[in-house]
């Protein structure tokens, strides 16, 4: 009897393992073309038209001529980079090109937002603003749990104001309740640092930096040190207990004037800097702070997220010369009315992040070319210094008013995501082979570390660095990925293409999401033909290398 049981167990285990393996490695599900409900598409377009009209007003006022519309594949590439952190796969490009609906882009945006890759990718981007990038003290801070929680909220379509309220008013254990890590991220050297939480709260949720008011009144804004302290006092009762993070009712928030002094310090009560009525009447706890931050009349809240999402879509905040979380007060700068329009629409639609993204993706600004007639095919060498300066000054105005799509350096996770995607024909996502997903994960972390993670300030303008150029040109990954391996696109495209023209076109599509120009085709076809048959793989390899190292690959356009 015993023996029979153990055989049965063995069979069960084998069957279980087989079932799991086949589930994990099953081929991708066939995909339908994405689609969205037509009235919703119309409503998004109407909201986008308001933004277009506002930008048109700016252009007329500054005498700026906007660039023409970009082609659909370029826009698809932008969307894929912004929402999934990679370029589109060949599979996606083919399906997109086979879609002949006039408003296909609108449907594709909606479809991309329902993909799990969106929830995961945006969770990481937003987590940077909420808990930073440091792993911190593992015992009381679990960044992975926070990210998993946030990704779940996004996937479940939880309204954004509710997500924010749950973070600010969180209670419990950081392993079980992911949102608690918003608070424990500010735990260091044995205690909570409430001012760190105030700085995060105002930056991430109000889009304003008042942290310098921690030590003195803000040098060029109106923020007072006492206002910073009042906000901080909301977090002043935080305590770690065996039951997790709670507010200890009797704990007082006190500030010592000098760090070494012996007195117990000045008592500070929780207080908001304006519109106290938004807090409600219950008391002055983190729950009321959350209500105040997200209150329907608190315009800063919606402007902050509109500016952040704009920055994630374009690579730069709406006001390019200031950090994404450093906006002036509402109604101060009339040039920022676009953010008010986006914010109002976001509020009117239940703080729906997807709606905000769809509206931005439908604007003329987002669909505009990065080629502008004023600078296209201009030979700078042929101009005098004065003429170049004049051109530059005029063009800066065009760039400032979003009259041309900006060139923005891809962030490291986008570069690696794109390199890996370019070497697979199918989309690398949750339906991918387990091994492919594992490779992507392992390589991404390693590459991002070598490339240099820009951290919390990832939306600030930055130039490339020499170690990055060296990594792209000579790194192990670029060598592995350009090797003609039968499992990677390099090998498969070179092997399967019927003609060199076809091979070159496919390589361009998977790397740059466009077809080669006749001049480019001619150049590489000649290389191909000049090479003896046995060496032709090296031409494909070098072509990949060229595409990976081109500015077009590394810069969003």
């Amino acid at each position, binding site marked *: 009897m015993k023996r029979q049981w153990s055989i049965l167990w063995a069979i069960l285990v084998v069957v279980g393992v087989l079932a799991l393996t086949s589930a994990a490695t099953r081929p991708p599900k066939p995909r339908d073309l994405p689609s969205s409900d037509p009235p919703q598409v119309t409503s998004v377009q109407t909201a986008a038209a308001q933004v277009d009209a506002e930008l048109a007003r700016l252009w007329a006022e500054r005498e700026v001529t906007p660039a023409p519309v970009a082609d659909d594949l370029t826009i698809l590439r932008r969307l894929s980079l912004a929402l999934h952190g990679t370029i589109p796969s060949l599979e996606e490009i083919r399906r997109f090109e086979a879609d002949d609906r006039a408003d296909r882009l609108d449907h594709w945006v909606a479809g991309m937002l329902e993909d799990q890759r969106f929830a995961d990718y945006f969770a990481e981007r937003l987590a940077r603003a909420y808990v930073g990038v440091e792993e911190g*003290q593992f015992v009381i801070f679990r960044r992975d749990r926070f990210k998993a929680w946030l990704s779940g909220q996004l996937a479940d379509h939880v309204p954004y104001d509710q997500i924010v309220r749950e973070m600010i008013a969180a209670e419990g254990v950081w392993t079980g309740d992911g949102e608690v890590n918003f608070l424990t991220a500010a735990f260091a050297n044995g205690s909570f640092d409430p001012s760190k939480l105030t*700085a995060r709260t105002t930056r991430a949720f109000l889009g304003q930096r008042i*942290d310098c008011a921690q030590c003195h009144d803000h040098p060029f804004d109106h923020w007072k040190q006492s206002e910073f302290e009042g906000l901080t006092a909301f977090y002043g009762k935080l305590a770690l207990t065996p039951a997790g993070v709670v507010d200890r009712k009797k704990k007082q928030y006190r500030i010592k004037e000098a760090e070494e002094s012996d007195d117990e310090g000045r008592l500070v009560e929780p207080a908001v800097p304006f519109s106290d009525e938004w807090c409600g009447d219950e008391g002055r706890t983190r729950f009321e702070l959350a209500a105040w931050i997200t209150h329907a009349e608190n315009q800063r809240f919606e402007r902050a997220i509109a500016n952040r999402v704009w920055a994630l879509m374009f690579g730069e905040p709406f006001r390019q010369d200031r950090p994404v979380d450093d906006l002036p007060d509402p109604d101060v700068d009339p040039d920022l009315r676009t953010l008010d329009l986006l914010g109002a629409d976001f509020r009117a639609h239940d703080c729906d992040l997807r709606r905000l993204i769809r509206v931005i993706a439908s604007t003329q600004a987002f669909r505009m070319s990065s080629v502008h007639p004023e600078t296209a095919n201009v030979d700078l060498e042929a101009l005098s210094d004065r003429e170049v300066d004049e051109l530059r000054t005029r063009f800066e105005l065009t760039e400032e008013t979003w009259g041309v799509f900006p060139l923005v350096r891809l962030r490291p996770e986008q570069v690696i995501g794109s390199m890996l995607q370019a070497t697979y024909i199918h989309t690398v996502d949750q339906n991918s082979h387990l091994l492919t997903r594992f490779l992507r994960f392992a390589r991404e972390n390693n590459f991002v570390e070598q490339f240099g993670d820009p951290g919390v300030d990832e939306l600030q303008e930055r130039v*490339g660095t020499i*170690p990055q150029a*060296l990594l792209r*040109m000579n790194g192990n990954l670029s060598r592995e990925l350009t090797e003609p391996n039968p499992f990677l696109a390099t090998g498969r495209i070179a092997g399967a293409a019927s003609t060199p023209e076809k091979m070159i076109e496919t390589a361009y599509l998977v790397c740059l999401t466009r077809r080669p120009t006749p001049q480019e085709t001619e150049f590489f076809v000649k290389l191909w033909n000049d090479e003896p048959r046995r060496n032709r793989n090296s031409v494909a390899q070098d072509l990949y290398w*060229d595409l990976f190292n081109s*500015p077009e690959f590394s*810069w969003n356009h």
Partner: protein
Amino acid sequence: MHRSVHHWLRQVSRREVLQLAAGLGVSYLLPGLEARSAERRGSERPTSLITLWMAGGQSHLDSWDPHPETEHGGGIQPIKTTAPEIQIAHTLPQMAEQMRHLSVIRSLVSKEGDHQRGTYFVQTGYRPDPTTIHPAMTALVARLMTNPNIEIPQHVALATGDNFSVPRGGYLGDQYDAFRIFDPGNNIRNMRRQVDEKRQERRLEGLGIVSSAFSKQRALQVEATLHEHVVQQALTMMTSDQLQALELDDETEETKQRYGDSRFGRGCLVARRLVELGVRAVQVTLQGFDTHINNFEGQKAQSEILDPAFASLVQDLVDRDLWDSTIVLCIGEFGRTPWLNVNAGRDHWPVGFSCVVGGGGLNSGVLIGATNPELAYGERQRPQAEKTHPADPIKVQDLYATILSRLGLNPAEELITPIGRPLALADGSPIARLLPGGA
């Protein structure tokens, strides 16, 4: 773009030009060698900074601040050194020979007891602050003392470990992050092209073709990205003779043995070569000081790596007349508790720890500060902020102000951060006792 294709091609054949030039004896065509010979020696030479980073937190009691009288002194015996006032642990015999060139501070004080925060503070001289990322001291040196003759990275981190211990450029920009080499002398990461010269030439020509359509259409924008500039600099680096400074092929076996067969040992040797070349800012990391368990064995093993490498570095710099133009600082994020925990380990201790500093014309043989392990043990239940500081406490900021002023920089000079906030290079004042003429 128009220029770049040709420029790239020129870069590729540069090596051939150099070979030709060398054959003809036309040395002025050899920028790498010229740079090397242009570097003066002695005190007229601009000063470089080498930081030996003791990652994880070196136990000061088991190295620069032995206390055999305490219960938890743990069999460490103090030995006399060539500096009359300074005694160090018997596990550092070669360093004992070199101490006449160096000074010891035993009373550094920090508020940061976490590795990452402590590292940030000790590398930058500023506490972590959400509004700004401060540059590490080595990044400031690389930026303010850039050597125009150097084609390879100006700020190098050797034998790197945890990501956060690699010094960063902070608000100076990513281009001032240290260039990282994990295994010095063995692997100059990503510096060598993947294919032979002929094929590299083909690749660069193809790259020119792929880039040109894109760039022509966006003349001003692409220029502003500096993409081509950066690629060109990278290519220059790849073909530069100065890369030899990162390799150890022309060092004798005896020399390599002297420094020790470890990543740290090779790192110290490469650091010497970089300084000789004229690189101003180098960090060499020695990992593994975080001895929460079996402290004595752990620290002893670390000393065995540190001792020959540090001592050989000092000796070689002195022998080569580079000591007056090189500051060497040996420091980590904090020290370790003056008592043992239940696992015979020592935990983090930012309230009174040691560093060793010398060279660059700093006074040597100076001993600053004193810790009191018995008192610290008595106060072990007190929160960190209420512990008694060691005698003659020294701020990390003051140490950096001292180093900066020896480098010829003004520590009070302010740089404007990208958000318009002025910040001093170091928020402290120089320690007079370490400066020439100081008491």
